[in-house]
């Protein structure tokens, strides 16, 4: 629903969308989506817009009835239509993880994307054996590639032997899309939870994020809720063994609205 009050406020001050957007440190199209009700601002962005137009930022949240029924998504449908993006997968059943990795990789190959599976040798072998049922030898060799998780985790970026990875990446053309399935087995401390991602940044795989679809898989019994909360703020989709939904804490989510917690509302 359009935010008529916001449009009226801006026009009464004789400002353009571009002027408000620039002063709020966001781009015009995003601001336009906020006015049209297609996007919901995070509290930080709400505060920036409110400072420009001089109103209470919590007006964005006023009188909302949080009683919408949220929709679950279908992984195949999501992947078919997703050109780039990240999915946080918290699995409780290891076999489901293997099946999901296979489904994810098959979708990648179906879309002619290179698939990099970051896991232990043993797990990769299990995934590859299942993929053999569905893919030709040529498809397997061309599209499915293994990155050894233990090597990534046990070495610091500067010591990591990336020779074989560089060989893989040299094969890629700039227009190639990448499917990345990354299995993280332990609950790392907050400082090193993104160690794998840092390693990937170092070797260059994460450089072109517009052409990357990634599945970050964690054993749900080994990850604490406070880590999960931090991950939900960074990764747009949340998947369990049974469902996939938009992450409720991802700030740019289109369907979920993030309200400030109780005391933050009282402070305003």
């Amino acid at each position, binding site marked *: 629903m359009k935010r008529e009050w916001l449009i009226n406020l801006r026009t009464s001050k004789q400002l353009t969308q571009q002027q408000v957007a620039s002063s709020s440190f966001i781009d015009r199209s995003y601001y336009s989506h906020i006015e049209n009700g297609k996007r919901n601002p995070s*509290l930080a962005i709400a505060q920036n817009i409110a400072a420009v137009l001089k109103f209470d930022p*919590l007006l964005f*949240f*006023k*009188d*909302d*009835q*949080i*009683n*919408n*029924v*949220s929709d*679950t998504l279908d992984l195949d449908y999501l992947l078919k239509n997703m050109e780039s993006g990240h999915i946080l997968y*918290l699995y*409780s059943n290891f076999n489901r993880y293997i099946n999901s990795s296979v489904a994810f990789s098959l979708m990648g190959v179906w879309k002619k994307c290179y698939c990099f599976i970051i896991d232990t040798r043993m797990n990769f072998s299990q995934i590859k054996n299942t993929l053999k049922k569905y893919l030709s030898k040529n498809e397997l060799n061309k599209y499915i590639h293994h990155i050894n998780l233990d090597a990534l985790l046990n070495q610091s970026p500067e010591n990591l032997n990336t020779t074989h990875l560089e060989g893989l990446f040299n094969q890629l053309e700039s227009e190639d899309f990448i499917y990345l399935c990354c299995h993280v087995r332990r609950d790392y401390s907050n400082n090193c939870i993104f160690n794998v991602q840092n390693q990937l940044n170092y070797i260059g795989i994460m450089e072109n994020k517009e052409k990357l679809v990634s599945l970050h898989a*964690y054993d*749900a*019994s*080994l*990850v*604490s*809720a*406070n*880590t*999960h*909360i931090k991950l939900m703020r960074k990764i747009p989709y*949340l998947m*369990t063994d*049974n*469902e996939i*939904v*938009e*992450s*409720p*804490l991802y700030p740019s989510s289109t369907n*979920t*609205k*993030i*309200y*400030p*917690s*109780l*005391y*933050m*509302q*009282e402070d305003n």
Partner: protein
Amino acid sequence: MEKMVQLTKFIQVNSSAHILYLYENTDTYINNLLAYIKTGIDRNHHLIIIENSTIYNLVEARINELFSSEDKNFIHHVDNYLFYRCYGDFHIHSIVEHFGELLDPFLNKKIDVRTWGHVEWKDQDDISKKIEDFENVADCSVNEMGLMSVCAYDSSKVNTHLQTAMMKSHQYLMTDKEFVQSPLYQIIK
């Protein structure tokens, strides 16, 4: 359509809102608890606060600064050590039964009441499964009683398996910073 009630001056929720709060910082936790108390009292709702004595002592000092004697009549503290049987087995049915006994005097007199339970436990086998089952039962009770209820957990003591299970039995999820609808809630309904 379900009856909606004001949670804060900006948010309306179902009258039987079952809220999962995963906190990281104790100071922020206390601020959120005090805000919950204040918004309840502003609407003439009584508050049952099931809390450990260490945190409640800190909360009580702030309550004494913030609220009048009349307001304080709306606040009722229950020791969570006894309530959640932190001395022994996390026994679901005893806890739910005790919860009902606490609420009966208010509900019988048609007095509006909101609850806040800080869930803690003694280390024991299968505690995740017990809590998951407990929250499923609690969700049914909260819905039946038309009660606004917060279940607060230290996020460092809950694993993600339990968290996603609890996001299915609570319609709302709160962190120190955010308040959102749980996207997993309607799936088991």
